[in-house]
């Protein structure tokens, strides 16, 4: 630990170039001297929103160029969105109004147009860059168990598309890129108490959150993680329970399973209390009006019929509470963390039937919840209570897979592959589409699709997507990259060797603003 911390200080970059470029940054940013791995010395947070079940992103980013749009409507006579259900967007570098979002994503659209959101097109699990011929030939370059929910969720979480045949160590196969990023970010966090987990999860995929060294805080979606007591506040007898339990957990009978069980208990006991206290104290350090405004963002002013079953906005509200606790300096009662990763998830995206009814409801929930979170972070960024540790947050989506472009006989769609991901935040280089939007041609050679139903072969890999985000959080060395994304170097080398398009030959996708 000591050595790696010294190494970190020696190699830390001093690039705070963005300070000069950004005109309207709040005043505290000028105080940020202490270099960090990424050049931002305050608190940075990545929030993974996992759309469980396989989101049909063919219906969240729609080309309005007439030829492509005609193909879209032809392939989706029932579930295709009509012109009056769409709002145009104007991505940088493209013709005005060349794409559209469904009206159910009106708030996301506003963030996109304001430069705070971007789409990453046709990204998915890959071993190597893949042509149609490569796919047809099969073999170990084709990801394992395509179109299977659990395997593809794992592939996104793990950033490894071929866990069965990959030569990487078992450590890597059983961990996720969120957790492995935390393994490397850990040196940046000097929390009180020490070693507070970088990753907090309210839902989504546990695999994503698990590192080799660093284990996540898993919390129920209501945000509560607390040991029951007999009295509130805890009585001396409750204190005795807690103290004695902590002691009992250290007895392992020289058995590795007992030691492992004791460790998990220890983590929960050590950090549950610290977390609960920091959540209360840090929140109280914010002005009451700010607290009320933040609370208000997450309450729908005109609740839709299915509002009672919504789960995403409540999870993201808990992220806000933990984010405040994490970013708040210890002098204000917070944990004083520099880097955190959050994981939330919400399901029912497996729209095999009646997608025309169900997906707009899901997108409405997504739209409201992401907007509430974005507004909350924007308000938090300028709060003096954070001192020099004001938070920045980037939300990014993952999903099992995209769905078939061609609708099925039940007004639904089936499992497919490459899809479009959304990134949102004030540090996103927004109002842009990254990567290559798929061709909708379902005739002829079908170069971009596994078959005639329109299952896009990804043209960007999960690792490129993940590394772009992990870099923004502070990882920058080749060693860190190869540790968290062990397949990425080989992917890029193969792209270079076989002369794939430029985007396949880069480690990163530039959807985050430079620091």
């Amino acid at each position, binding site marked *: 630990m000591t050595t790696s911390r010294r190494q970190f200080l020696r190699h830390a970059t001093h690039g705070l170039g963005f300070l000069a470029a950004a005109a309207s940054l709040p005043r505290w940013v000028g105080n940020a001297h202490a270099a960090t791995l990424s050049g931002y010395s305050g608190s940075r947070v990545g929030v993974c929103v996992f759309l469980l079940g396989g989101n049909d992103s063919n219906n969240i980013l729609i080309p309005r160029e007439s030829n492509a749009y005609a193909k879209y409507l032809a392939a989706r006579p029932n579930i295709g969105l009509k012109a009056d259900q769409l709002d145009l967007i104007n991505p940088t570098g493209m013709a005005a109004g060349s794409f559209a979002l469904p009206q159910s994503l009106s708030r996301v659209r506003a963030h996109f147009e304001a430069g705070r959101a971007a789409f990453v097109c046709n990204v998915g699990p890959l071993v190597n860059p893949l042509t149609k011929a490569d796919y047809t030939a*099969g073999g170990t370059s084709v990801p394992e168990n395509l179109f299977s*929910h*659990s395997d593809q969720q794992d592939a996104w979480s793990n950033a490894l598309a071929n866990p*069965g045949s990959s030569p990487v160590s*078992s*450590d890597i196969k*059983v961990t996720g890129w969120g957790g492995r990023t935390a393994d490397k970010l850990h040196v940046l966090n000097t929390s009180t108490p020490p070693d507070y*987990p970088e990753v907090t999860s309210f839902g989504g995929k*546990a695999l994503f959150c698990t590192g080799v060294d660093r*284990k*996540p*805080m*898993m*919390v*129920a979606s209501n945000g509560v*993680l*607390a*040991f*029951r007591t*007999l009295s509130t506040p805890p009585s*001396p*007898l409750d*204190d*005795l*329970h807690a*103290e*004695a*339990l902590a*002691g*009992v*957990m250290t*007895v*392992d*009978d*020289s*058995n*590795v*399973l*007992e*030691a*492992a*069980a*004791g*460790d*998990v*208990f220890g*983590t*929960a006991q050590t*950090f*549950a209390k610290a977390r609960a206290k920091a959540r209360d104290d840090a929140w109280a350090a914010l002005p009451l009006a700010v607290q009320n405004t933040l609370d208000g963002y997450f309450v729908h002013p005109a609740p839709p019929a299915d509002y009672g079953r919504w789960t995403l906005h409540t999870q993201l509200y808990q992220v806000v509470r933990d984010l405040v606790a994490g970013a708040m300096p210890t002098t204000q009662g917070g944990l004083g963390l520099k880097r955190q990763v959050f994981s939330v998830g919400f399901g029912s995206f497996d729209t095999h039937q009646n997608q025309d009814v169900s997906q707009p409801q899901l997108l409405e929930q997504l739209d409201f919840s992401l907007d509430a979170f974005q507004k909350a972070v924007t308000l938090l960024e300028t709060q003096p209570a954070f001192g020099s540790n004001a938070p920045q947050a980037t939300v990014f989506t993952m999903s099992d897979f995209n769905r078939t472009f061609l609708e099925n006989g039940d007004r639904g769609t089936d499992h497919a592959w490459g899809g479009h991901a959304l990134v949102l935040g004030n540090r996103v280089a927004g109002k842009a589409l990254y990567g290559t939007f798929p061709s909708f041609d379902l005739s002829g050679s079908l170069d971009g699709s596994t078959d005639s139903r329109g299952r896009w072969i990804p043209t960007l890999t999960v690792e490129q997507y993940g590394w772009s985000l992990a870099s923004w959080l502070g990882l920058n060395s080749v060693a860190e990259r190869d540790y968290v994304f062990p397949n990425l170097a080989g992917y890029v080398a193969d792209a270079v060797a076989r002369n794939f398009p430029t985007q396949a030959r880069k480690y990163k996708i530039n959807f985050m603003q430079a620091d």
Partner: protein
Amino acid sequence: MLRRTALALVLCATSCTQADGPSATESPPPEQQEVLGRAEQAADTLDTPSEPNSIRFLEQSSFGPKTSGGISPAPMGTAERVMAVGINQSLTDQFALPASAPYDGEIAQDLGSQFFQRAVLGQDQLRQRVAFALGQILVVSQNGIPESTKTAYPDAPVALAGYMNLLSQHAFGNFRTLMEEVTKNPAMGRYLDMVNNRAFDSKGDPIDPNENYAREMLQLFTLGTYKLNNDGTLLLDVEGHPQRAYTEENVKAFARALSGWTWNATACPAKGAAINTPDYKNPLMPCNVNHDTSSQELLRGVSTTAGGTITQHLTQALNNVFNDPNVPPFISRQLIQHLVTSNPSAAYVRRVANVFRNDGTGTRGNLEAVVRAILVDAEARGAQPPVALREGYGHLRSPVLFITNVVRWLNAELDITTKDPGLKLSNWSKTMNQWVPRSPSVFNYYPPNAPLPGADGLVGPEFAILDTATVTARANFLHEFLNSGSTANAGILVDYNQFPHVNTDLVAWMNRFYLHGTMSTDLEQRLLTAMNDSRADSVSRKKKLGLYLMFLSPSFQIQR
């Protein structure tokens, strides 16, 4: 003492490769010597097992050991009974017991509640324990059965009740029979798309059938991903690489060989058509009209008969899988993991797999013989695990086993006539991420190959659902259970007067029974220190504190 050492030596002759650890020469704690003394007249054998050995046996073969409480003769499922009749007879007794009342999907009581009620109160402990294990290998989830509105009953509960009854009925039967029953079961049929899996589309043109059931049947229910040696280790090729147990072509072939089954009905549908009214009370119905009758190449170069019937092909396909050399080690190892230990030695797996291959009468797949082989094995028996294996021995009690062991050890009474205590237990289990019978996916609540955190190379399946949230839920379950009255606990009543009133006596009691005499002096001291603390200001408080710490301690959380 001599007896213990001798036992350790006997075990080492068969399974030890390392020098004895320090615990081999430790004296048993004083409170245990009486126990050992009682058994000293005879060696700790299958016929005359010691009390610790008997308790361990019940930990492995039931939902929690009990003691007779002075009732004579000692009832089945108690340590005294096992000591009196021996391990083999105890197994024979359990095999002979009829199954508890069948699960009923048409009553209001949740299936999770019905499960816990049977697990805590049922006599057929071993049958239920094995059925529960099988249900975690051949997984169907209540959450994966949609309501159809076309049946006169609630689809998901009726489907799952039928499936759980099937597992219970065949728990000691033949694995080949079980495979066939599962393949034709309507709940499984719906869960993994076996039902209405047609080889033709509505125009009558051939299509590729759905591969879902074929794939999971091979990957999860019978073979696993890679070829195995008979001892469960990977069968490597000449270059030292693992070899796939089946190919994608095999999956397609099995999907075709198993095509054409639909819901039970009065008549088969037209070619390419489906029956859309579920029948969760009867097995699936074969319909040749939707079956691909062509020959399919299965495993090991075996093919189905060209032009064969749908039932003929199903028989050939299941025979082909059943006779694969992967099945005995793959199934044996998982059953050992569920009952005894997460990381059995290769020799243990081989001994059990050999019985799976041949029960001694030439029969393959005799689950009764397999279960007996697992539980009489030297690696399972004895007062303690074999010394050389002790460091990595045992398995984390799953939420279900944690809960039922606590409830049974505390001799809790369940008021099942006026309240629903089973539901309370099921809801506690849910908070620990094991919501019976609602596995989140076909990969069970936790996968058999989940790594043990911090121990490279070992697995700890149940650790996949042990995290900060669920570990807190374990503590909170126990806290609530111990400190709430029977009203709040939905009719679960514990008489704490049955436990010793003096701290040292209670700790000795907990050591003797709950840890079958393995309590370390460190744990003993910590328990006593806590219970002697003046902040625990009554006998009742001291007892409940001691029980709280005991059951949450790693020494108890890991079944050894």
